């Protein structure tokens, strides 16, 4: 059994193996994970909106041992990650990190958002430091405005088409 604690290091190996076959293989895998997560989450987010998303990421913050601040406003949910446990483990690893590691988050989140009518923006800030800012909006225009301010927005599907 690969322990749950080591899932992300296994995940990182999957990313590198797929990337070696071409970036579109990696993007297709993220899309498949998004479909898996859509089954789990989309109905809850669709009916519960930002509050349901806030409840989900509150649980994730605790279960995954994130050092993060979580805030719910009238406009958005913000997850401000100070120390990402996922990237931290991938960096604390005898195997090399995938250069696209951080993109997996939006890779699975974007299909969920498409299915539930919310809009997510992830400012990765850095691909080699474990901090980022993630927001979910109900209003697309407000999400786009936040994305324009982002230092390093994650756009795994848009970037794959370019």
């Amino acid at each position, binding site marked *: 059994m*690969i322990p749950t604690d080591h899932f992300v*290091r296994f*995940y990182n190996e999957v990313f590198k*193996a797929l990337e070696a076959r071409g970036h579109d293989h990696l993007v297709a895998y993220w899309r498949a994970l998004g479909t*898996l997560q859509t089954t789990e989450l989309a109905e809850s987010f669709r009916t519960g909106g930002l509050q349901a998303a806030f409840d989900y990421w509150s649980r994730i913050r605790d*279960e995954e041992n994130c050092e993060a601040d979580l805030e719910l406003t009238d406009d958005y949910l913000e997850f401000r990650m100070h120390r990402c446990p996922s990237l931290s483990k991938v960096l604390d690893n*005898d195997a090399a990190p995938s250069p696209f590691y951080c993109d997996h988050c939006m890779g699975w989140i974007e299909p969920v958002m498409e299915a539930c009518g919310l809009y997510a923006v992830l400012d990765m800030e850095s691909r080699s430091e474990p901090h980022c800012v993630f927001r979910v909006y109900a209003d697309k225009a407000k999400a786009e405005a936040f994305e324009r301010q982002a230092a390093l927005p994650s756009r795994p599907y848009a970037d794959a088409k370019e």
Partner: protein
Amino acid sequence: MRYQETGQVHMDFHRTTNGTIAYLREAYGQEFLDEVFERTACDVYRSIRDSLMLGDPEPLVEHWRHFFDREGGDYTIERDGDTITMTVHRCPAIAYLESRGIEIDPAFCRQTVVVNNALAAGTPFTIPTEVQGGGRCVQTIRRAKP
């Protein structure tokens, strides 16, 4: 031990592992899936493999104990001379997936079989895994005959 996580355990990663195994097996075949597990064994678990190379199986036993305990697995470890046997009575990963009603991919236990084989390759040990079904298996660290 190279990795020794503490804090909460996010059991739902077993669901993502199961989904990943199903995806890789269906899209690319079992050989590709096994290659990823072999890389995980040789690169992520390099320190365990290095110890096995030097004839020391204890870091692997410590790894088994630490993570099966963290996930609430039901297992026993017995020693008979150079042979160390871990009998898993209830795999925590399988138990979690079953508790969620998730269909378990037929290749799910390849993660254990292939990782053990890859850890042992080129070392003085063999680590066969006997998958018995229902979340039960027997993993044996055995010094290979010269």
